[in-house]
């Protein structure tokens, strides 16, 4: 048959997939279009919107503008059986796996250091390999409300075999093309520079997939360095990265990306990173988690007792480049 689309290859991975109409109905019924004050702390936001077994995505990364206070809160609440999107990740997977929160990881970039590598080598965490680009295209499809995105990456590779993509013969060009299934995470956590109490959010700097991640996800928790008035968004509508109706919770989280940096606010804490990336053994990991996550009640206490004003002041001082971030 002339019109039959030929499937040339199927990747092996299990996929988290939501039918586009199911997602539309969720948006219709569960996403509030009213201007509702969504301000709450990490504890309440995670309790309300992150469930055991959820598919979790985040943006940007643990070095830059990553939602680290929310990651720590997810660990503190000992969430279980998460399926995590490791898109452009660095240390989020390391911590979540160390805390036993994660069962499965879709990999753009697995993460740094010997600890997470060992978890995969031992089979303690199940992984599915893609690439940063293909997982981002999955989010783009999820954000557009379509079931897949065609693209020309992963073709011919073992990565394709282990992914959730398929290869078809494109009916237009007649060449093989990859189709990546849409990704609609149950929940995403995103750190931004500025947000209002309704969830309008503004990011300065490169965005990775901020808007796509928010649009594609059923529930969205925004953490922000500053809470600003809504009029600020109306004055510069071009600068709105995520509109309020995508957002379910807004957390005011100064230094929310620590030990990473947030552009225009503070630099990353390189010493703390070194401590994290050098974790090898289970014992070292559990000691780290006890000291920096479990033994403090919340983000404020973490900053006060585990980081300290002196260190925070140094990180602000190291962040002197403001061009583009105001």
């Amino acid at each position: 048959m002339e019109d039959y689309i030929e499937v040339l290859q199927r990747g092996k991975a299990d996929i988290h997939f939501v039918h586009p109409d199911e997602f539309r109905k969720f948006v219709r019924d569960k996403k509030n279009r009213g201007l509702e004050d969504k301000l709450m702390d990490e504890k309440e936001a995670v309790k309300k919107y992150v469930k055991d077994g959820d598919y979790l995505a985040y943006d940007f990364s643990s070095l830059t503008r990553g939602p680290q206070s929310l990651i720590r809160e997810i660990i503190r609440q000992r969430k279980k059986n998460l399926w995590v999107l490791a898109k452009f990740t660095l240390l989020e997977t390391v911590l979540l796996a160390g805390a036993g929160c994660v069962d499965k990881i879709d990999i753009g970039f697995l993460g740094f250091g010997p600890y997470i590598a060992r978890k995969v080598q031992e089979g303690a965490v199940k992984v599915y390999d893609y690439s940063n680009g293909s997982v981002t295209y999955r989010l783009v499809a999820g954000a557009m409300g379509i079931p897949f995105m065609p693209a020309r990456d992963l073709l011919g590779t073992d990565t394709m075999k282990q992914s959730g993509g398929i290869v078809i013969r494109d009916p237009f060009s007649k060449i093989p093309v990859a189709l990546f299934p849409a990704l609609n995470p149950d929940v995403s956590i995103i750190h931004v520079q500025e947000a209002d109490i309704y969830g309008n959010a503004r990011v300065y700097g490169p965005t990775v997939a901020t808007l796509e991640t928010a649009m594609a996800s059923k529930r969205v928790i925004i953490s922000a360095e500053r809470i600003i008035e809504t009029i600020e968004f109306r004055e510069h509508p071009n600068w709105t990265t995520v509109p309020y109706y995508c957002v379910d919770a807004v957390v005011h989280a100064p230094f929310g990306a620590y030990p990473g940096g947030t552009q225009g606010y503070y630099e990353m804490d390189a010493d703390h990173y070194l401590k994290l990336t050098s974790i090898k053994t289970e014992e070292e990991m559990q000691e780290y988690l006890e000291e920096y996550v479990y033994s403090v009640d919340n983000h404020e206490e973490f900053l006060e007792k585990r980081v300290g004003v002196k260190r925070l002041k140094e990180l602000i001082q190291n962040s002197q480049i403001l061009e583009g971030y105001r």
Partner: protein
Amino acid sequence: MEVEFTDTEFMICNAARLLEDNKTIFVGWGVPQVVAILAEKLYTPNIVQVFEFGAIGPQSRTPFLRGTMGGPSNTYRSLQWCSMNLAFSYAQVGYIDYGMLGAAQIDRYGNINSTMIGDDYSRPKVRFPGSGGGNEVASYCWKTIIVMAHEKRRFVERCDFITSPGHKLDGKTREEVGLPAESGPFRVITSKGMFGFDEETKELKLLGVLRGLTVDEVLDDMGIEPLVAENVVELDPPTAQELKTLREEIDPYGLIISKGAKFKVEL
């Protein structure tokens, strides 16, 4: 007079000399970032760096911050900040001339492994971070340059896992599997030499060796036998100016450039 330098310094300098001015380059994490900064400072002032997280044309600040990927010094004075979707789409549609990547393993056709060592995907002997944006760089850029340490175990007949595509994928050409035509690996820069790919067979071909090394010494350190060009050129060691720029301006703490074996070569 002698010049002393590390493996990494030689690779960085040799790779920087390969780039062309007024072209775009997709830059991977780590060593490629330093290559691009060195090239911009000494050889190709109008080269436009492109980063996967969504920075087009930054003029990265020095000293280079190791680990930075998207922070203010790495994205300083960009022409555009955008999303990852767009950064890769610029490459997919054909705007990006060069790509630069590292690799754990490489095979005869320039396929790259950055995922795992072993033969069981579910229980790898060694697990690496995986593709990151490497697959897109190797799939989409017109010419990909691979920069890697020259070690026997890294050159294999077939990668344990093909993360990113070379010129032939289990017998099929790039076009046959659907990859963009006329793209693919262009050079492999190692700590001992430089390789290209044969125009006809697309096999790895030794083009040059570091001054002071023989062709046999370079071939002995490989797990496969590559083709050898008729006239293998002698590659200059790092120049005084290159080393000064690397050591004083770009990486004064030696976070990247101090890695690897040390070489001494007569000037």
